[in-house]
């Protein structure tokens, strides 16, 4: 039997809206799940997805993608790439898998909400495929690291991380809970797919794929490139939804969701991806700086996408651009200084050659971040190791759940952005984090950040051992310097040379 061409039947087949006779429209599409924004179903029928794919096409393509990724893995399993990789690169893998794998699996639930509850038939079809994408991403990113668990206990965090109260995971959960687990279908399409996946996921997966290939880790490069091809398809779910909202006079509501999600995504990526690109990836394998990547993949991408849709740039755009020079350096220093509290071994990334690279990419680095590193390096060289570890907690932002940081040294501008709400004093890392809270205080006010939990007596004993226990970090899993401080030898030699002269 001859098959019809896809476009001869696609639009008819996927237009499955009907007028309910036995229940009301609100019972079929409960507003809190559907997020219809008060628009009738007919308005959502105008949703026109840019990427049209049928189920048989999807299955065929996905099968080929899986076959490709799994055969590269099988072919390279005896290659000892993991065993011989630079320790900084292993940390990249550990941080990535822990923060991403189970989040992808959770995203299947968010896609399923769009699949069932969106009033837009085209969105329901795309989200059906998106939901299966996310199940695949969860499974494949748990299967691939599993072969390394027996070699390195920290690799177990690929599975374990999301079940813990480790501070970076509290931050990741807070973000994903906010943008995808507790929002209606339309808001998910705007906040998860348009705001997060279009830009930030692109950067994590394309940027890391390039770095992985440079580092010789072809299994990882192939895996995340394979995932990215799915992401770039289902990331397009949100754009047409924004168009429907704007055409129906809902621009402000749409804009607000974009502004919230882009900022909170940025903060999470400043701690996850920033240190990886500018400090952990071995210098000779770095393709671009984190800032350059952000400018190409996030700034340019969003400016174009927002303009095309008729949305404005977020009100904080200038601050965001300025923060590309700073925030991730602070996140890196925080992760490094509090390294026993992460499940990977942070690479310091501050050899003289690396500092030259940082100064070139971020003029002024030596006068600011370098000032703090000078003290840390002296302590390592002098053997004052106790001074290179923390004895207290950093203050943590009540929105992004990350340390409240700023520029140190000669550019010192660290600041708290406090807010008293219902008799409780909240602390924020920026005026934008505080603004996000103020958009819906009741939504966020009940959450306790790590410092709130500590002060409430939930972490016992109230010291590092109690904190590690609270974060489920078992002995043998604590982070320490990726290169066992070997990088300090250069500074030791430089000092001896100076003394000799």
């Amino acid at each position, binding site marked *: 039997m001859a098959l019809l061409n896809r476009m001869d039947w696609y639009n008819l087949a996927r237009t499955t809206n009907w007028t309910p006779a036995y229940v009301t429209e609100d019972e079929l599409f409960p507003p809190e799940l559907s997020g219809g924004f008060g628009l009738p179903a007919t308005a959502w029928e105008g949703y026109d997805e840019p990427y049209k794919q049928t189920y048989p096409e999807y299955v065929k393509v996905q099968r080929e993608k899986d076959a490709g990724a799994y055969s590269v893995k099988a072919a390279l399993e005896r290659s000892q790439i993991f065993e011989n990789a630079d320790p900084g690169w292993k940390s990249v893998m550990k941080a990535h898998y822990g923060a991403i794998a189970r989040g992808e699996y959770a995203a299947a639930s968010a896609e399923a909400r769009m699949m069932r509850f969106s009033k837009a038939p085209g969105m329901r079809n795309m989200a059906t495929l998106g939901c299966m994408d996310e199940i695949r991403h969860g499974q494949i990113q748990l299967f691939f690291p599993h072969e390394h668990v027996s070699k390195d206990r920290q690799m177990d965090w690929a599975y374990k991380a999301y079940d813990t109260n480790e501070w970076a995971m509290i931050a990741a959960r807070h973000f994903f809970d906010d943008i995808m687990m507790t929002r209606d279908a339309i808001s998910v399409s705007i906040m998860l797919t348009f705001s997060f996946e279009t830009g930030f996921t692109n950067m994590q997966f394309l940027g890391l794929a390039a770095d992985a290939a440079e580092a010789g880790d072809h299994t990882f490069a192939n895996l995340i490139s394979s995932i990215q091809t799915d992401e770039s398809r289902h990331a397009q779910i949100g754009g047409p939804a924004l168009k429907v909202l704007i055409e129906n006079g809902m621009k402000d509501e749409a804009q607000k969701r974009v502004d919230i999600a882009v900022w909170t995504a940025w903060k999470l990526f400043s701690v996850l991806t920033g240190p990886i690109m500018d400090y952990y990836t071995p210098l000779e394998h770095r393709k671009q700086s984190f800032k350059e990547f952000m400018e190409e993949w996030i700034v340019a991408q969003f400016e174009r996408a927002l303009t095309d849709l008729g949305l404005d740039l977020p009100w904080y755009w200038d601050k965001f651009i300025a923060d590309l020079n700073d925030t991730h350096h602070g996140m890196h220093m925080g992760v490094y200084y509090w390294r026993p509290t992460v499940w990977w071994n942070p690479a310091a990334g501050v050899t003289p050659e690396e500092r030259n690279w940082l100064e070139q990419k971020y003029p002024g680095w030596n006068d600011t971040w370098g000032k*703090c590193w000078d003290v840390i390096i002296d302590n390592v060289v002098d053997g004052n190791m106790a001074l290179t570890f923390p004895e*207290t907690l950093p*203050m943590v932002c009540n929105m992004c759940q990350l340390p409240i*940081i700023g520029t140190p040294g000669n550019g*010192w501008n660290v*600041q*708290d952005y406090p807010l008293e709400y219902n008799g409780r004093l909240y602390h924020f890392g920026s005026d934008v984090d505080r603004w996000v809270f103020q958009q819906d205080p009741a939504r966020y006010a009940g959450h306790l950040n790590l410092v709130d939990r500590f002060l409430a007596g939930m972490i016992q004993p109230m010291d590092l051992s109690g904190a590690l226990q609270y974060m489920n970090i078992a002995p043998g899993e604590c982070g320490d310097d990726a290169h066992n401080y070997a990088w300090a030898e250069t500074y030791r030699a430089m000092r001896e040379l100076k003394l000799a002269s």
Partner: protein
Amino acid sequence: MALFPLSSNFEGDFVLQLVAVDSENTMDEVAAACAHHSLNRRVAPRPGTILRVRRQGAKDYFPRDLKVADSGLAPTETVEIMFEAVR
């Protein structure tokens, strides 16, 4: 006598830190408690200076012998610990 948590913003450092002091501590003692977590860890000492404490955003320092309990500070409020040249 009561444990009093403050947020320490130490001049030249990169992060706010939780510092537990006592409500009976003077501002000099607060400065020393905050310095313990920043000075010689990520901030180099500055010879010829002492440390002063002020509320975030304030121009004037608290008197050096002022007790936390009498300062009007709220628990977890952010204080700035600044280097001041010895006169």
